[in-house]
């Protein structure tokens, strides 16, 4: 009973605090405080909503004013031209921008090149397009919309109190959404997208769907904030709505507070709004703005990841009193199933063109269950391309690929990953802002079979231990050496319990001792019964590890067979060493 009370007490306190804040306008404070807090909550909601896509997923948007503006004009038009009660306009003010975001995202997110600054510019262009439409149609037409005739419901004793309450509800909801997202599968996927979208997709994150969801959420919140703001401002103009202030402020607030944190943008919004309001006396206006700018520059220079991550980092450095207990390593039952005759992977006539370059020219390859196939060939022979088309990173130009008898060649990479295909990268590509353990957990969550978070964590710890990374769980990839990063790649792949493991030059760049370790590790993986296709240049490893070796040359399967036979094949030798020498 006492434990239950202790567990529930923080929640109860939080609920009471939220309730108390909601009722602030009834406390009899001067109305200005309601009004000021409205502006704070307004910016908290806008900045947090921006971070849902741009901070979490790294799709930096300069078009937040577009969605804010669509929401604002939705309320303004519905309330003034169709006499819809103000509160009833708000759902539409959220839904319309969300739909707009889905439509834009459905086009933009399919194009890989539209990332980074191109996405920022595109969203900015969307703002201009929407502003032009609003300005040149009866929605506004240039004359602005005056809201004075729209009745404001009396939710609080004063109109300003009512605005405060509406902003408070939206703000709390927005923060709750941001918290939920950041602690959910969706959030994990978005953070992975932020760090490396291609890898996220290959690890099983449905990147397209997740980005759409984040974009819609972000736009919907901006829209409803706009809907309330239409009434607050009272006179709506295109120039005042679709201006650059909104995107610039939300970016600044999010960057200051920490855009990857659910709470960071809120901190940034509170700080900046308070600062801007602290220097509004006529004598200090210019000086105040300059001072605010100076503080922001200093804060961003010293805290490039934002205030909240910096505080978290500082708290983590402090001794906690007790050493972190070693994570229990769950026993993983090794499969004893030997390599059988059942074909797991069937590659038929796999062709891949990059413009005029034929990287794969009709490769046929069968991989049996439990088998290790070494994939060798000179540089440019198509080895990595074959790995990329099997894993879905590149679509096939021709041919087909089947896993377990089911065609996977037309599937997106995340779907292929979920069907049991895991891969590593020649140059490790961990999610750089996630700890080593979070990297493995993310891969296990999206790529592996459905399990509870606790099971996923236990198994992730196991695979970290299996790959020799115990004790490095909380380290960021930047703190790991190349050897450890390569093994982190392996741990990520293994944590998905793959049917087929694609290893791309896992030994390259390692010293002899590390190579020996790695070979032992791959053997251990094999002992688990995994089916492995691995690309390797180191012949000793190829011969030691492979059941069969496939030699690719100029995009074609040149030879396939037992390692020692293939390596003695004069044709293979000539490919590697040159005809003159071989002769």
């Amino acid at each position, binding site marked *: 009973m006492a434990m239950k009370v202790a567990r529930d007490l923080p929640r109860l306190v939080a609920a009471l605090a939220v309730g108390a804040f909601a009722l602030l306008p009834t406390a009899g404070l001067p109305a200005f405080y309601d009004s000021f807090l409205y502006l704070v909550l307004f910016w908290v909601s806008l900045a947090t909503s921006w971070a849902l896509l741009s901070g979490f997923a790294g799709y930096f948007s300069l078009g937040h004013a577009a969605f804010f503006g669509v929401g604002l004009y939705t309320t303004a038009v519905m309330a003034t031209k169709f006499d819809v009660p103000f509160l009833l306009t708000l759902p539409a003010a959220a839904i319309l921008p969300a739909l707009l975001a889905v439509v834009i995202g459905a086009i933009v997110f399919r194009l890989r090149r539209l990332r980074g600054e191109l996405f920022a510019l595109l969203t900015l262009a969307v703002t201009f397009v929407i502003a032009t439409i609003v300005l040149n149609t009866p929605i506004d037409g*240039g004359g*602005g919309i005056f809201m004075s005739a729209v009745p404001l419901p009396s939710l609080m004793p004063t109109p*300003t109190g009512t605005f405060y309450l509406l902003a408070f509800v939206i703000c709390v909801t927005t923060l709750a959404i941001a918290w939920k997202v950041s602690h959910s599968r969706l959030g994990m996927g978005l953070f992975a997208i932020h760090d490396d979208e291609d890898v996220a997709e290959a690890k099983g994150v449905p990147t397209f769907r997740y980005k759409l969801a984040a974009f819609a959420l972000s736009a919907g919140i901006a829209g409803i904030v706009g809907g309330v703001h239409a009434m607050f*401002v009272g006179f709506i103009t295109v120039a005042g709505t679709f201006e650059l202030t909104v995107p610039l402020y939300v970016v600044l607030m999010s960057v200051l507070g920490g855009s990857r944190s659910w709470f960071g943008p809120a901190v940034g919004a509170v700080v900046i709004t308070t600062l801007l309001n602290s220097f509004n006396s006529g004598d200090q206006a210019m000086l105040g703005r300059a001072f605010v700018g100076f503080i922001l520059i200093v804060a961003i220079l010293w805290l490039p990841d934002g205030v909240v991550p910096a505080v978290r980092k500082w708290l983590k450095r402090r001794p906690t009193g007790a050493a972190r207990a070693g994570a229990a390593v769950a026993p993983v039952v090794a499969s004893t199933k030997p390599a059988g005759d059942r074909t797991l992977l069937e590659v038929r006539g796999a062709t891949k063109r990059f413009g005029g370059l034929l990287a794969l020219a009709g490769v046929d390859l069968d991989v049996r269950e439990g088998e290790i196939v070494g994939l060798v060939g000179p540089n440019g022979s198509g080895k990595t391309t074959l790995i990329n088309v099997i894993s879905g990173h590149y679509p096939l130009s021709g041919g087909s690929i089947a896993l377990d008898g089911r065609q996977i060649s037309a599937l997106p990479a995340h779907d292929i990953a979920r069907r049991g295909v895991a891969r590593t990268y020649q140059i490790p590509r961990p999610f750089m802002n996630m700890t080593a353990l979070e990297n493995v957990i993310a891969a296990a969550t999206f790529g592996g079979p459905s399990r509870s978070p606790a099971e996923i964590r236990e198994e992730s710890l196991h695979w970290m231990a299996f790959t020799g990374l115990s004790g490095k769980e909380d380290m960021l990839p930047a703190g790991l050496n190349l050897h450890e990063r390569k093994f982190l790649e392996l741990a990520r792949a293994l944590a998905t319990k793959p049917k087929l493991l694609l290893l791309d030059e896992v030994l390259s760049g390692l010293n002899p001792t590390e190579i020996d370790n790695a070979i032992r590790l791959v053997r251990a993986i094999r002992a688990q019964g995994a089916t492995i296709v691995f690309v390797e240049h180191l012949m000793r490893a190829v011969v030691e590890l492979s059941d069969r070796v496939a030699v690719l040359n100029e995009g074609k399967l040149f030879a396939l067979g037992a390692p020692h036979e293939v390596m003695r094949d004069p044709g293979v030798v000539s490919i590697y060493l040159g005809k003159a020498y071989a002769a």
Partner: protein
Amino acid sequence: MIEQIGAWRRRRVLTGMAAGTAVLAAPALLRAAPSGKPVKVGGTLSLTGFLAQTAGIHRIAAEIMVEEINSRNGFLGRPVEYVLLDDQSKPEMARSLYEKLITVDKVDLIQGPYATAPILAAMGVAQRYGKVMIQSSMGIPKLQTYDRAFPATPFGPEPDKTYPNVILDAMASIPTPPKTIVVLTSKFPSAQFMAKGMQKEAEARGVKVMLYLEYESGNHDFGAIAARVKEANPDFLWVGSLGLESNLLLEALRKLDYAPKNHFHLYPAPGPLALSPDGDRALCSTFLEPDEPFMSRPGMKRYAAEFKERATKANLPYTTIDAQACGMISEWQMLEAAVNGAVSLDDAKIATWLKTHKVDTVLGHLRFDGPYNHGDASQMIKQVQHKEWKVVWPKEFAAPGVKLIAS
């Protein structure tokens, strides 16, 4: 008898001296420095943000007026304290800061901010607290729906009807009155509002509107618009422009080797247009220019000199007093007159007094008993002549020796 006469004379002389002293001393006594708790008058201006350039003008004008009022009797014998805040050119900030002025700073009276959107945002606050709000820069009077909001500039209740006719009257007075017109306008609410009025009134007076075209506010590329103007070749070009848009349009027309015959510009940047080689004979709207007969209005010379001195010190680009500055002066003249007239700081009494009285301001005799608390319209037309703006219409307000020059 002689003694009696002498005594009588002494009494008369002494009485006369006493009376004379009293008469002479009275204004000095009346002008005694106001004392007691200051009367706080709060307001915001766009000291930062995109409207900041105009705020410098308004601020100087307001400071001149506060000092002048305090050099007289303040408000009802109490000194006036101007509580000025920066609304950052944002209506939401204006709204919030007027809440602050009224509920935290507890100002006794308020003055309106600059520009339509902040004014409307502040007007809602003023209405909730029953405060009188005087403003000088809202170009769409019909939006001023609060019965204690008053204009300090003589737009009149329907400037979209009255002002086009002032312009058309002026055009009708030239040797070859225009028969055709092209109306261009920025899609800025107050400019668009006037442009639609211009189109309608021109048609009503039989002037053929060859082209009505709206462009986005802040447009920089007038090439295509200039081509259409040239093609239409109107007798009169009316431009609902803001800032430098007029300069850009005229430049684009020049590049097409086209000079408009007569051309009017609504709210241009006055200095750049007057100094531009394309700006000669450009027409524009105004309420006042620093010439006669305006300079003979009470206090005007003093305001002009004071403004020039302070504007120079503040490094303002244009140091000559103009209609913008006089709008703010007019605001304070109205407030002072209303407080003294009502003998009260009570907003209801001040509002009632304003609605029932005329106020002499630098912008003329203003009354507030018409629709939207507006009185008579008093728009005028000025023209660039020798790189200076001169009022040319109505004729009685034209500077001495200055006439409207037709192209």
